[in-house]
């Protein structure tokens, strides 16, 4: 197995594990960006270039910004980014459950009768071929994903937007008015 894969796996797993154990949310988010970039490097190593750049654009570019905005919008104090420590019982129980899952998965993968001989010639998918697949075989799925993304973005705006601002001195209505569109 190549050294590159081991380095990619170590960087990805290490930054993900450290991110999940830190108390500072900003540090966690930045380490998770490193982890997502490591996953993109894995896709590049495996020969799926388009997926690698999609991962870079979506996760390293977009989701990380949304996460950082959420962290900054929901912080408790203005200077201290650390959050309260979690209960020790939860951590121990989570480690037990995760360790048991890891053991089961490792045992299953190692003992599975997978084909040992890897495909010698890596398959390459050109962007042209992918575009034809998207427009031909998977055209319905493409349309559904477009509709899903539109609905999800509208729902996110409605969820995160504030209600109508009432003028001072007027009692707020009993039933919250429907949210208005954010400017």
């Amino acid at each position, binding site marked *: 197995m190549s050294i590159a*894969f081991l380095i990619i*796996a170590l960087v*990805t*797993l290490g930054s*993900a594990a450290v991110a*999940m154990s830190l108390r500072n*949310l900003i540090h*966690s*988010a930045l380490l*998770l960006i490193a982890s997502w970039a490591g*996953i993109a490097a*894995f*896709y590049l190593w*495996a*020969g*799926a270039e*388009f*997926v690698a750049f*999609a991962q870079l654009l*979506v*996760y390293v570019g*977009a*989701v990380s910004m*949304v*996460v950082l905005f959420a*962290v900054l*919008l*929901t912080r408790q104090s203005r200077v201290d980014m650390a959050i309260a420590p*979690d*209960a020790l019982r939860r*951590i121990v129980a*989570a*480690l037990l*459950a*995760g360790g048991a*899952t*890891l053991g089961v*998965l*490792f045992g299953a*993968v190692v003992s*599975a009768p*997978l*084909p*040992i*001989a890897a*495909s010698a010639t*890596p*398959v390459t998918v050109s962007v042209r*071929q*992918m575009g034809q697949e998207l427009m031909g075989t*998977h055209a319905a*799925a493409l349309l559904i*994903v477009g509709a*899903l*993304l539109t609905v*999800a973005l509208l729902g*996110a705006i409605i*969820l995160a937007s*504030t209600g109508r601002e009432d003028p001072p001195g007027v009692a707020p209505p009993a039933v*919250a008015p429907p949210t208005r569109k954010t400017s």
Partner: protein
Amino acid sequence: MSLSPLQLCLLFSSALFCVGLIGALARSNTILVLLGVELMLNAANINFIAFWRFGPAPSPATGVMFVVFSIAVAAAEAAVGLALVIAIYRHQKNIRLQEAVRLKG
């Protein structure tokens, strides 16, 4: 015994899945729980790519197509999830999961 490349990729993705699982179970901050779920989704995508690359009969583009759609759905999930986090913060002024015990705003 020696492990095939496919098995090494599967071990990598299951380790990443378990890191995400431990994070989602252990932390009480809503954003970190959501990020743990994202890590688990990424581990599933790594499995798709691993089977596409090292699987027995790799069809030309099926695995890649699957991951592209999966990334799109994961992006939608992240956007809605973080909007929910902000809505929870507006209601109860913190985002600890233990204190989010009411469904009514």
